[in-house]
């Protein structure tokens, strides 16, 4: 049984402002790319003295209402494929449960350091491959001068869309094609597993919708919010059954987060689609370095390499956390910059249209 009194931290004004601020930036990024923020919020709460599981649970309990508000907002812009989101979300829920089970087994066998090493290694491998690919693709689009053109499904997506498995085909409006659920189920499962492991399932969910299924970036990032909602409700309830959700923390983060998610969602209507990939790729690659720094710490704790001094561990931990915050801040900066530029272009366009029609 959990000791209720010791699990809940005292909240002072600075802590509340900190949660609000990080929530806002996390929300801004989530509203724009469909996920993000959790990788800073969970360790951020733990640094305030919140027990690890409670930090994960409280983060999840702010995530689903945030995703709901973001999804509703982006649905108004016609960016959400609800059917794809729900189908992926349900298989993601199964992935979350399996991912959590693997986590528990690793923790039992190798302790906290083993579990942390597994999480960091998963971060590094996935972010290096998927993040590197997404960033390279965004950069290529930026350099090729085709950023204004409509996105086209890649070779893999075209192949997936061409496979017809009778009895399993479902039409998805974001793809404007029928795809077998035998393809969507493993993708959702992988998203959920990643969410249970590194807390940001969207780092697999969004790229897989874009590159494997052929969804446009804007729709993939919006649909990810539906997946996050479905996963988040189930996950939060599971944690709440054990009394692990600190609703005060979750709602204080949500306070800032809802301002951010609305702004991020509005921002998507002004930017070119490749900006979604750009922001996601940049964040993923920076976070990769943050987690890579921690690998030697956990390896030394497991006795896989020479023991590190306390000072070295502290420096590596603090640097790692600072890089994670930087990843989020840089992502938010790129979004705001693209948003401001997009608004300026929009105003110019409207003004020139008005001139053309002799309105002014």
């Amino acid at each position: 049984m959990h000791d209720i009194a010791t699990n809940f931290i005292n909240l002072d004004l600075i802590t509340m402002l900190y949660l609000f601020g990080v929530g806002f930036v996390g929300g801004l990024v989530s509203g724009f790319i469909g996920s993000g923020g959790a990788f800073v919020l969970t360790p951020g709460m733990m640094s305030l003295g919140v027990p690890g599981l409670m930090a994960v649970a409280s983060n999840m309990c702010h995530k689903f209402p945030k995703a709901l508000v973001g999804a509703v907002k982006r649905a108004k812009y016609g960016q959400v494929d609800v059917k794809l989101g729900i189908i992926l979300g349900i298989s993601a829920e199964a992935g979350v449960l399996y991912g959590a089970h693997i986590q528990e087994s690793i923790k039992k066998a190798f302790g906290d350091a083993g579990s942390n090493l597994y999480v960091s290694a998963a971060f590094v491998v996935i972010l290096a491959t998927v993040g590197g690919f997404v960033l390279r693709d965004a950069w290529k689009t930026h350099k090729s001068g085709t950023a204004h053109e409509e996105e086209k499904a890649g070779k893999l997506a075209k192949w997936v869309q061409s496979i017809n498995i009778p009895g399993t085909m479902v039409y998805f409006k974001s793809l404007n094609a029928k795809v077998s659920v035998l393809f969507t189920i493993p993708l959702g499962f992988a998203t959920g597993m990643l969410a249970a492991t590194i807390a940001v399932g969207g780092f697999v969910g969004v790229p897989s919708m874009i590159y494997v299924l052929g969804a446009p970036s804007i729709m993939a990032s919006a649909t990810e919010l539906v997946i996050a909602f479905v996963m988040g409700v189930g996950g939060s309830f599971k944690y709440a059954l054990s009394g692990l959700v600190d609703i005060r923390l979750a709602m204080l983060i949500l306070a800032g987060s809802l301002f951010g998610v609305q702004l991020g969602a509005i921002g998507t209507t002004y930017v070119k689609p490749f900006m979604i990939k750009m922001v996601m790729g940049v964040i993923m690659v920076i976070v990769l370095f943050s987690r890579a720094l921690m690998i030697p710490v956990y390896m030394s704790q497991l006795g896989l390499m020479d023991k590190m001094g306390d000072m070295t561990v502290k420096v590596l931990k603090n640097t790692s956390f600072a890089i994670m915050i930087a990843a989020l801040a840089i992502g938010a900066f790129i979004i705001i910059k693209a948003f401001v530029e997009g608004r300026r272009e929009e105003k110019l366009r409207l003004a020139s249209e008005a001139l053309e029609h002799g309105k002014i």
Partner: protein
Amino acid sequence: MAATSSKKKPVTALVITGIVSIVMYGLLLTKQELINSTFGKGGWFAFLPIVTAFLFSFVHGAFTGHFWTVLGIEAAKKKKEVK
């Protein structure tokens, strides 16, 4: 008048949702002990944090939406036509 400025801004809705949101956060922070001890019980009490999260998302979500609209920060008017 240009179409961009003709839309009425939802100031009343902003004020109402803002007040309700402040009251809800006020209750959350002034009744911390009661909330922690009840919500932390687990079991059937698991519905409490979930329902609370939904309530806050409706009220505060509406407030933050109106907030940006009143500030004049809204979605792009229309997408370019693809022919």
